[in-house]
């Protein structure tokens, strides 16, 4: 525990130092990066130790604020979430050192690094806090620091819009959480997690719904996701990586913690979570398919993956409600494993997108193309990350999802209503997987393959070593975590056991390690087979030099880059099919002449939930508020009338 606390302190000191040195951007940057790296190393060590030994650590001190106490606890669950925090933050800091170089002199780098370190520190606080006031302090500082980072390029209107939506969503969520903790609060004394009272009936249901919305607003599942596709692309890419990779997981963590306070769970809770998870993973993948900007694709993919995690949680809860602990244990372990996996590959992908943005100047898919030639490393890493995100073996994405599938089959082959949950979970997972594959093939293919679609992106350049090194590390970790999944199962199960008790945790390790070993084995076999095929191909070529030619375009002599399939044309069959859900806006050419000279066609993905629900709701509320604005119309007489009428009413009513 001292190690984690000291790493938090290092981060805070780094933040302060970066702020003090803001007049010297390079020094401020050095302070930020080095403190982040040092803190990450210390924190990673501490978290790994807890995970390996399984012994929770704790720290407690009095805190002179009402309801507060400085109680920290590092149990396996917290440690399991802390690993990606420190891992990704450390790597993102290194990446950021390269990424932000281009902004030196134009942007306040000292402030950016202070905010970044504060963000990391506050996430560490969130995962280790065992007191509601402390937790909320970490939670809100996390929101505030990331808000500043979202507004890093505040001269762009969409960044300000994103900042507003993000802040408003965060504020609403935080209020829910205050109510949630108030419900659990003991009769007196500080609101330590250990002293929370048990709830039942309506109070428990209220607490569950508050936690689900409050934490859900941070986790970003549908329909509480609207801030996510706005905010994540707006932030600098290393921050997007941290936000998408770990920050939204604080919502998942919170939900898991909250559920641990509220056991036993009624069945409908499980179904609710399951349904939200299914909606989120399907919707996230579908919306990712319709986006035109690389980082937005990734943001929607984050929604999808949070949905997968939620789906697994819901499956586990439903199973647990029916006494199928083995099933639940598998699902929970799968959920946690996916938390780790997602942070690895999503971090990698956002860094890749950042390199594109950095090298080509834009991340608009319709302007990109052919980057694999100019940015070979980035292309390789991004495509590897894509494969991981599509849960393709041998990468890590598959291992986590496999556990969830396994859980769903356990329930399928079992009897009772849990079977239905299993079927639905598996089906949602499979469908989302296919959609996600389409989305990633589209994004990666359009950005990196073929020919550049715009002149300005033809001169793209590869990212520097500071940016590539963290990406290589993450890609290697993605592969390693895929091949060594059985090793990760133990910690994941221990984390689940720490949250939900032994029956829902430890059993998973015994039950799933066999199939997981096979998965690793087949991953290795796949690699071996690939090597064999490659060798055979090399043998067949026998040293002959392949000939070069233009792309065969079915006889057309002068193919041009503009004839390539673009991102929107690639997804058009699918997005058309799902148009009722996607409601993309389009402009279609009307051809009226025999020899039309030019025609243009454009589609635009819209933020369906935001535009169709939140915006009208907000407009309705604003309209109502404007109606009420008549009350403050400026006439003194009427103002005094308010006083008389109220007084009269009070006297008549209360006397």
């Amino acid at each position, binding site marked *: 525990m001292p190690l984690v606390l000291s790493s938090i302190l290092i981060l805070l000191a780094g933040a302060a130092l970066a702020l003090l040195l803001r007049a010297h951007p390079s020094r401020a940057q050095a302070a930020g990066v080095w403190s982040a790296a040092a803190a990450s190393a210390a924190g990673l060590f501490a978290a790994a130790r807890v995970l390996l030994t399984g012994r929770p650590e704790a720290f407690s001190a009095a805190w002179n604020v009402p309801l507060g106490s400085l109680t920290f606890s590092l149990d396996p669950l917290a440690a399991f979430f802390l690993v990606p925090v420190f891992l990704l933050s450390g790597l993102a800091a290194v990446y950021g050192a390269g990424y932000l170089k281009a902004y030196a002199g134009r942007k306040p780098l000292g402030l950016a690094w202070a905010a970044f370190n504060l963000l990391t520190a506050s996430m560490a606080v969130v995962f280790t806090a065992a007191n509601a006031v402390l937790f909320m302090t970490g939670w809100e500082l996390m929101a505030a620091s990331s808000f500043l980072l979202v507004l890093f390029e505040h001269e762009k209107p969409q960044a300000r819009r994103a900042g507003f939506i993000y802040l408003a969503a965060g504020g609403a969520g935080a209020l829910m959480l205050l109510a949630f903790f108030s419900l659990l609060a003991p009769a007196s004394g500080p609101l330590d997690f250990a002293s929370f009272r048990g709830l039942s009936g309506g109070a428990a249901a209220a607490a569950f719904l508050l936690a689900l919305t409050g934490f859900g607003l941070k986790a970003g599942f549908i329909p509480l996701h609207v801030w996510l596709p706005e905010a994540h692309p707006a932030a600098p890419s290393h921050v997007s990586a941290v936000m998408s990779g770990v920050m939204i997981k604080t919502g998942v963590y919170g939900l898991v913690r909250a559920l641990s306070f509220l056991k036993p769970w009624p069945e409908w809770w499980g179904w609710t979570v399951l349904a939200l998870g299914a909606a989120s993973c399907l919707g996230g993948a579908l919306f990712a398919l319709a986006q035109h900007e690389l980082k937005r694709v990734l943001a929607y993919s984050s929604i999808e993956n949070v949905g997968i995690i939620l789906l697994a949680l819901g499956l586990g809860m439903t199973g647990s409600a029916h006494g199928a602990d083995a099933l639940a244990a598998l699902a929970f372990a799968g959920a946690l494993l996916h938390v780790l996996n997602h942070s690895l590959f999503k971090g990698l992908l956002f860094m890749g997108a950042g390199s594109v943005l950095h090298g080509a100047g834009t991340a608009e898919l319709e302007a990109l193309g052919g980057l694999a030639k100019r940015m070979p490393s980035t292309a390789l890493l991004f495509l590897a990350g894509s494969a991981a995100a599509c849960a393709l073996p041998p990468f890590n994405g598959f291992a986590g999802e496999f556990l969830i599938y396994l859980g769903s089959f356990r329930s399928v082959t079992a009897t009772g209503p849990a079977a239905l949950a299993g079927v639905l979970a598996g089906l949602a997972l499979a469908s989302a997987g296919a959609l996600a594959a389409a989305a990633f093939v589209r994004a990666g293919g359009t950005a990196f393959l073929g020919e550049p679609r715009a002149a300005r992106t033809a001169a793209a350049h590869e990212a520097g070593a500071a940016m590539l090194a963290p990406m290589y590390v993450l890609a290697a970790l993605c592969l390693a975590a895929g091949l060594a999944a059985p090793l990760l199962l133990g910690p994941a199960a221990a984390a689940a056991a720490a949250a939900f008790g032994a029956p829902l945790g430890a059993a998973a390790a015994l039950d799933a390690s066999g199939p997981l070993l096979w998965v690793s084995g087949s991953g290795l076999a796949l690699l071996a087979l690939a090597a064999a095929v490659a060798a055979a191909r090399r043998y067949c070529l026998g040293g002959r030099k392949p000939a070069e030619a233009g792309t065969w375009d079915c006889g057309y002599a002068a193919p041009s880059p503009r004839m390539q399939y673009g991102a929107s044309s690639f997804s058009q069959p699918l997005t058309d099919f799902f148009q009722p859900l996607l409601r993309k806006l389009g402009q279609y050419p009307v051809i009226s002449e025999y020899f039309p000279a030019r025609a243009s066609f454009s589609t635009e993905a819209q933020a369906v939930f935001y535009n169709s629900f939140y915006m009208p709701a907000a407009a309705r509320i604003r309209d109502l508020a404007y109606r009420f604005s008549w009350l*403050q119309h*400026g006439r*003194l007489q009427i103002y005094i009338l308010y006083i008389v009428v109220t007084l009269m009413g009070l006297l008549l009513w209360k006397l």
Partner: protein
Amino acid sequence: MHTLAELVIVFVILLDLALAVTGSLSTCIRLVAAQGVVAGLLPLLAGGHFQPRAALFAGAIVTLKGAVFPWLLLRARDKSGAGRDVEPLITYPASVLLCLGAFIASSWLGSRLPLPATGVAWIVPASLATIFAGFLLITTRTKAITQVLGYLVIENGIYIFGLALFVEQPLMVELAILLDVFVAVFVMGIAIFHISREFDHIDTAELSELSDWRRGEYGR
């Protein structure tokens, strides 16, 4: 003696009604002054035995409300060039009806609030009615000056209640309260001067620029 006090109270209520129907500004000012004088004399009438301190205090009130305030307000009226009429926002019959409604409500409230240890009946209804009459003056008349008058009527109502009750108060408190009222009227008078200078007249309809009303920006 109590009968006399009760007669005075009836007179006060009649003054309220008169205020509701009077259209002339100067009459209004004089009615308020008369009401103030009556209110100031009420403790002497109801008290029974003579106390020098009470007499002194009553004298101060009578001077203030009977002489100083009318003089101040009439001067303000002349200086600001306000017209002779009170310019009500509602018709006079409506004013009277509202006034009567206030009396009914006040008497109901008075029945709910029996005062202990006082021989004078109708104290609570009369003072409440006067307060509401003051509010009527403020809310249904346009001119700034009538609003000051309304404030004074409210003050009268409160005095009727307080002075008739013999709530024993330290002299300093009573003087402080009196001073406050005096300063309030004085400051309001100054403000009226400023208003007439800035706006050319003292119709408060002009005084409604500060507003949050988003007229026409909703319901579309």
